[in-house]
């Protein structure tokens, strides 16, 4: 199954969610490939890996065949990653001259099922060709959203993008869930935004991820939440989301 994590708004914990859900799947024995489509290279940082231009090499330098994939072993069982860094900018330029470029990821991932149970895309904020290509290639969309007004608007926008892409292309991508992040139980705003999401999207709203300093510590240490000691509040939320995802899948 191919799952894309998207929200047009930045800073909503897309990369954190993608990394922790992917590593959670890997720890449960699912062979998982995490693909960083964001030129900021956050995935490498979050996993404590050196930066790399795997995405550029996979899509442009090497033939777009999955058996030539340049996935990077993360040192974590069942988890591989295709890293991204500043070469993602030239990649988008290179793709602008390619016919049917919105199909580029779907074509590159042909036959992935023979190797991987799950492929997870971490998308950059905003709308670009890789964002569209991810929605075309994916089977499911998960939207992490911070519990604030602008991020909630980002949810509406990405839902609209998905509807447009399904209409204009042969994408089979289905809306899977919305992960409310940075939930702070002592602020009214978190409650109001969560209620708003629930009224609008009902069962699509997944368990919340509480605001948690451990997330910041984990990114500094290059570890996932599953590798942090104790019982971080945010990890409990991701564990619930993971259980929900596996039930739906």
């Amino acid at each position: 199954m191919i799952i894309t994590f998207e929200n047009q708004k930045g800073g909503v914990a897309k990369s954190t969610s993608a990394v922790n859900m992917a590593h959670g799947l890997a720890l449960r024995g699912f062979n998982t490939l995490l693909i960083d489509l964001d030129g900021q290279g956050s995935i490498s940082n979050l996993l404590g890996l050196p930066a790399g231009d795997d995405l550029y090499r996979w899509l442009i330098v090497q033939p777009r065949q999955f058996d030539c994939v340049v996935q990077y072993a993360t040192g974590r069982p069942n988890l591989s990653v295709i890293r991204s860094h500043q070469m993602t900018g030239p990649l988008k330029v290179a793709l602008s001259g390619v016919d049917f470029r919105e199909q580029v990821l779907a074509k590159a991932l042909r036959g992935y099922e023979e190797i991987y149970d799950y492929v997870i895309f971490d998308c950059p904020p905003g709308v670009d060709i890789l964002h569209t290509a991810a929605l075309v290639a994916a089977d499911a969309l998960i939207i992490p959203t911070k519990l604030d007004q602008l991020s909630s608007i980002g949810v509406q926008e990405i839902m609209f993008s998905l509807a447009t892409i399904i209409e204009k292309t042969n994408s089979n991508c289905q809306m899977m869930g919305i992960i409310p992040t940075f939930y702070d139980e002592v602020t009214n705003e978190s409650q109001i935004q969560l209620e708003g999401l629930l009224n609008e999207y009902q069962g699509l709203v997944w368990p919340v991820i509480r605001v948690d300093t451990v997330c910041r510590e984990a990114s500094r240490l290059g570890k996932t939440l599953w590798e942090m000691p104790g019982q971080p509040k945010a990890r409990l939320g991701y564990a619930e989301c993971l259980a929900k995802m596996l039930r739906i899948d």
Partner: protein
Amino acid sequence: MATNENGTPKADPSVMALLAKSKDRKAFQSLPTVERAKVKKKRDRQTARIGKRGAYDLEPELIEAMKKIAEDEGTTASQVVGIALHMFLAKRVDLSIYKVKLERNPRYEYELVWKE
């Protein structure tokens, strides 16, 4: 996945519980001080009961008998049952005389049958 009548997925119970808890907290904070103290006392009582409750299948006559004694003694049925169980434990009752072998129970070996 559980769905509503219109086919949309039902709201996640953990999200609903979180919102309910938050509403309770807000309602509590908006109470006058006296009311707040009452609610807090009630809540503390409920918290103190955690781990002190057990459910057992008993004959209705036994339940009624405990209620009757509690009424007569002006106390609660829980207190009466508590004393009865302490007496039982203190006397180290030999249960073997009440044991009846169960034939087809996959879980338990014996049934205890009361003999007058």
